[in-house]
């Protein structure tokens, strides 16, 4: 274990120490993922004789979050707590980092058991999972945000302007993106009463029990893009082709069908507007393309000299073909 990991383990013991003086031991910490600004660590702790598998999400001291509109880690912890209280399957937050811990911003949550790899989740038809995603989304969208964290607020047409501006700053020339921006502006649905929107609810950010009959949603992860806006945005994003891992016949994450998602959504009190879902699916495909561009741009500018960013920059073309498939469809192999 590196000395940085040793320091982290020692700090985590202090974070988890209960006021009553319950003894806490923290085992080796291992880095799971993360970029320059945000890290995810996995570790086991023994708290009062009880073994606890845990996850730390943090921005190290001095780190600045890349991109705008991130909820921030303290807000993320509070959203997970509120969503859990509303009946959404989430990993329980057990501690939030404080300045006196000296570990940066972040929180500790329970480590759930299950599968997050999109390709494995999409490997089978999982009708129960699609239904449960619908129910979880309806509950997220009904979370009471009174007194909650201060989140970015947006509306459909504002999102189009945001994407146009973001794409424009990359300086790339993509007629297909301009076609999509124009279509989105011309077909934008009316403003809504903003609800809590997860912002990145897709196959890959869902912890799934693959052994349960038909699949089972164990936890909704990665709340960093949560904001207040049109709830149909989450349903459309879940249907973006890139998260189907080649299983386009199952439009919901490659594992389910729209009717299953919508039934689950309605069962938890939600109201589906299918035209809005389609509009957000188009916007989501464009968003993914602009995100790919932004990663390529981060490499080109030298801000993030990581080889994979250069490779992802070239994936913007997958958004172009998906946008054509949505906006100018033509015959294809079924």
């Amino acid at each position: 274990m590196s000395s940085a990991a040793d320091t982290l383990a020692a700090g985590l013991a202090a974070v988890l120490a209960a006021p009553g003086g319950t003894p806490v031991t923290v085992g080796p910490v291992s880095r799971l993922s993360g970029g320059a600004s945000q890290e995810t660590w996995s570790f086991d702790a023994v708290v009062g004789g009880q073994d606890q598998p845990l996850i730390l999400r943090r921005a190290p001291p001095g780190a600045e979050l890349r991109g705008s509109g991130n909820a921030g880690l303290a807000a993320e912890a509070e959203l997970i707590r509120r969503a859990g209280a509303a009946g959404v399957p989430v990993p329980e937050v057990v501690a939030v980092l404080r300045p006196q811990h000296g570990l940066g911003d972040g929180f500790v949550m329970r480590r759930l058991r299950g599968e997050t790899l999109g390709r494995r989740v999409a490997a089978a038809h999982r009708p129960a999972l699609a239904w449960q995603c619908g129910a979880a989304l309806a509950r997220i969208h009904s979370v009471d945000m009174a007194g909650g964290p201060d989140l970015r607020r947006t509306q459909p047409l504002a999102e189009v302007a945001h994407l146009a501006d973001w794409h424009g700053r990359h300086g790339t020339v993509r007629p297909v993106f301009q076609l999509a921006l124009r279509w989105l502006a011309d077909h934008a649905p009316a403003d809504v009463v903003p609800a809590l929107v997860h912002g990145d609810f897709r196959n890959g950010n869902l912890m799934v029990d693959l052994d349960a009959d038909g699949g089972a949603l164990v936890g909704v992860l990665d709340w960093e893009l949560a904001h207040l806006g049109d709830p149909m945005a989450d349903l459309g994003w879940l249907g973006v082709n890139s998260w189907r891992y080649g299983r386009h016949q199952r439009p919901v994450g490659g594992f389910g069908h729209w009717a299953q998602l919508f039934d689950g959504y309605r069962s938890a009190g939600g109201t589906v507007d299918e035209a809005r879902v389609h509009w957000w699916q188009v916007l989501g495909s464009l968003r993914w393309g602009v995100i790919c561009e932004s990663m390529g741009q981060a490499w080109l500018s030298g801000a993030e000299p990581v080889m994979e960013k250069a490779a992802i920059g070239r994936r913007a073309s997958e958004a172009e073909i998906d946008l054509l498939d949505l906006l100018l469809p033509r015959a294809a192999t079924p």
Partner: protein
Amino acid sequence: MQDLPDPEQLLTAVARFLREDAGPALGRQGDNALAYQARVAANMVDTVARQTQLAPAADAAERRRLQALLGLPDEADLAALNRRLASRLADGTIDSSHPGLADHLWATTLAKLAVDQPGYDTYQRHQPTQPAGTP
């Protein structure tokens, strides 16, 4: 004149080394993240090889289509032609019903994917020569 192996063959050798030797060796040492990076690197080398092979003809065809679509037979700069089409789509003076637009965008995008991501499923489904799509 340079000798063999030619650039394409050199790239093939590098991609094969990354994919079949370096990546698996890193995986055996337990460094799955670096093994993954080796696969990414191999895919990038393949992209370079495909672009070298396919881009000259694809760019020439794209230029001819854009010149006809925009009525600019003397403009030879492909980037300038694309900027012109992008701005006309943005201001609505060309819209999705414009004759030839859909065919042009499809042909151009399929040519991009043939280099960037020939394995992507939407690209695969739009290959006329492909056998029936796999579920």
